[in-house]
């Protein structure tokens, strides 16, 4: 029901608040004093509240990074948990300023939905998870013909699933829920044979099941899922801030700037690091974006560089233990590449 409420709210908001979005998002955010950030309703490693109610994960940390860039204070962010169906309407209607919710970048979403994707914070692909104890012989997704498959509605996952089974001339029975928790509960209760979503998500969800060891993630990756944050279309300044916050995280990792050494790096004479940290004389790269010149210092102080963010939330420092893989920097054979700040 909630998505209808938001839909109507969205329609009403579009109808009545004619001027809300036309003022620059940066000014609006500064005026209210915090960043309203849309996250998932709870996906381990990306955005999920911990036992104290603090949001943890790459997506949540990206929100903090943007807040740090804007305010110099990563705590000035409020999180709005959104289901897959609610997320775009919430952004369109101005309810949130930034959508950082493991959302796949597609051409349709970029062009017809009034959104602008700012980058790919996590390169992912869709996979399948099954209960190996209940289905001992199954070790490939191609053996899933006739299976009941749990999936979250309104996602690219739902579309890839249909495509994959059609392409391989297999039958399946979709079991579709609106909320992630409902899909998890149904899969855990045995309502379906397989669970499909992005592979990173599967590893996270596996930890929340009643007996994680029984479940295996099948090897097939059936789609490209570049996950990234999005902003409303038509506000270039705000899009630049979000995009360059992401690039700053990558550049900081490449330059070896970490949460621990950022203060001492400020004294560096390396021109590249000086430009990044705003210590170059007469440099005004931050000011050009509408931020302070030490914006990168604020970001790295708050959440670390991209690599630290990754390891802390989904990598070796987390229960998920996902390898960097294609999410490594380009210098280490991965796809993460930050254009230069100069």
């Amino acid at each position, binding site marked *: 029901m909630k998505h209808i409420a938001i839909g109507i709210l969205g329609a009403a908001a579009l109808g009545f608040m004619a001027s809300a979005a036309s003022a620059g998002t940066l000014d609006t955010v500064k005026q209210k004093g915090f960043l309203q950030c849309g996250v998932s309703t709870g996906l381990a490693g990306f955005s999920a509240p911990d036992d104290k109610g603090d949001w943890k994960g790459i997506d949540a940390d990206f929100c903090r990074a943007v807040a740090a860039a804007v305010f110099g204070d990563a705590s000035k962010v409020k999180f709005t948990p959104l289901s897959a169906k609610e997320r775009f309407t919430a952004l369109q209607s101005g309810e949130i300023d930034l959508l950082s919710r493991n959302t796949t970048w597609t051409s349709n979403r970029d062009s017809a939905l009034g959104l602008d994707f700012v980058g790919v914070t996590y390169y992912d692909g869709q996979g399948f998870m099954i209960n190996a104890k209940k289905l001992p012989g199954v070790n490939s997704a191609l053996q899933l013909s006739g299976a009941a498959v749990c999936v979250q509605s309104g996602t690219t996952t739902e579309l890839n699933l249909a495509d994959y089974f059609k392409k391989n001339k297999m039958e399946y029975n979709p079991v579709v829920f609106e909320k992630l928790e*409902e899909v998890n509960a149904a899969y855990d*209760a045995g309502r379906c044979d397989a669970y499909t979503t992005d592979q990173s998500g599967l590893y996270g969800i596996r930890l929340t099941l009643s007996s994680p060891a029984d479940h295996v993630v099948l090897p097939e990756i059936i789609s490209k899922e570049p996950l990234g944050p999005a902003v409303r279309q038509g506000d270039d300044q705000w899009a630049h801030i979000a995009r360059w916050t992401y690039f700053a995280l990558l550049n900081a990792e490449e330059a070896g700037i970490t949460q621990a050494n950022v203060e001492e790096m400020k004294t560096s004479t390396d021109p590249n690091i000086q430009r990044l940290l705003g210590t170059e004389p007469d440099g005004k790269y931050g000011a050009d974006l509408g931020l302070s010149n030490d914006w990168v210092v604020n970001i790295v102080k708050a959440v670390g560089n991209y690599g630290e963010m990754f390891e802390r939330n989904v990598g070796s420092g987390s229960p998920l233990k996902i390898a960097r893989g294609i999410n490594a920097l380009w210098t280490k054979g991965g796809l993460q590449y930050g254009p230069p700040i100069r």
Partner: protein
Amino acid sequence: MASQEILREEPSRGSFINDPRIRSLFFQTLVVILLFSSIWWIVHNVIENLQRLHIASGFGFLKSRAGFDISDTPIAYTSDSTYFRALVVGLLNTIIIAVAGIVLATVVGFLIGIGRLSQNWLIRKICTIYVEVFRNIPPLLVIFFWYSGVLAVLPPPRESIHLPLGSFLNQRGFYLPRAVWGDGSWLIGVALLLAIAMAWFVAHRARQRQRATGQQFPVFWTSVALIIGLPMLAFLLGGMPLTFDFPKQSTFNLTGGFWIKPEFLSLLLALSFYTAAFIAEIVRAGIRGVSKGQTEAAAALGLRSAPILRLVVIPQAMRIVIPPLTSQYLNLTKNSSLAIAIGYPDLTATAGTVLNQTGQAVEGVFIMMIAYLVLSLVTSFVMNIVNARMALVER
């Protein structure tokens, strides 16, 4: 009219500002103008804002390929079908759940309602407890109760419970043998239609005869014999053209047969049991609303208690029952949108998915509102016809 004539005879008050006719005309025009201009303003604003925010608008997306699958499809549907067809599938699922729910809720509701007036203490108390429990729990909780509390704790597919007649029950649903009609089975359908026509004719003649001569005829049993007997005869004559497709165990689940999914089952049980509690109270109120004198007068005429109920009490009670019953049917239809919580692909769920895949929230919500409005108006229309037929006809 009368009041206007009186007004017209009143003497002029000197100024047209004081003329009540001109004043009422003025204010009515003003309200109409305000209404239409605010509608125009909202529509205009929505269109303008959608354009400004670079959001695609219009209903052209309905012709695009949907790309997602739906679990319950009463009509042929694949991921290659259009968004429009996906919405039709959702609408049909809503209609199926609404009709099935209304039938079941009415049967249960009438039984419980009559049970509350029973002479038997135990039956009366059980029915009271039923009403108080189901009426005071939100329907969403009842749905979760059936879905997570009852159906989800059933065994997994490989340990299905075997039920008589080759049917099975497991946490994936309820499996029944499916009837497969062979050649010549059209004869059975024809025989059934013929039997119904004959039963109607017998009933009609019996009524005429009773009115003319006072003699009664066992209409009910004759009809039952006709409606069961004739198709049976056709079935035997046609060489028994019927086989059954039994559900069988396969790799993941049972296949074949007729499969009722747990989402449908729990939604149906929850909606009808919930609404039945309200219907029971309406029925009780209706029967109580028939004055005691009517029953006593009928008894004085020598009628026994069953004919009194059938011929005197129920026809009068129905007049009280039907209008609030219509509201309950409308409620049930609208409550079926709670299906989304357990993943039954009704209109709200499919339209929600379409809305999200296309990003066209305004159009999606508009389609949903129109669809529910039309469904409700059709239900009201049908119930108004029933009500008109039940109304007191003076002879």
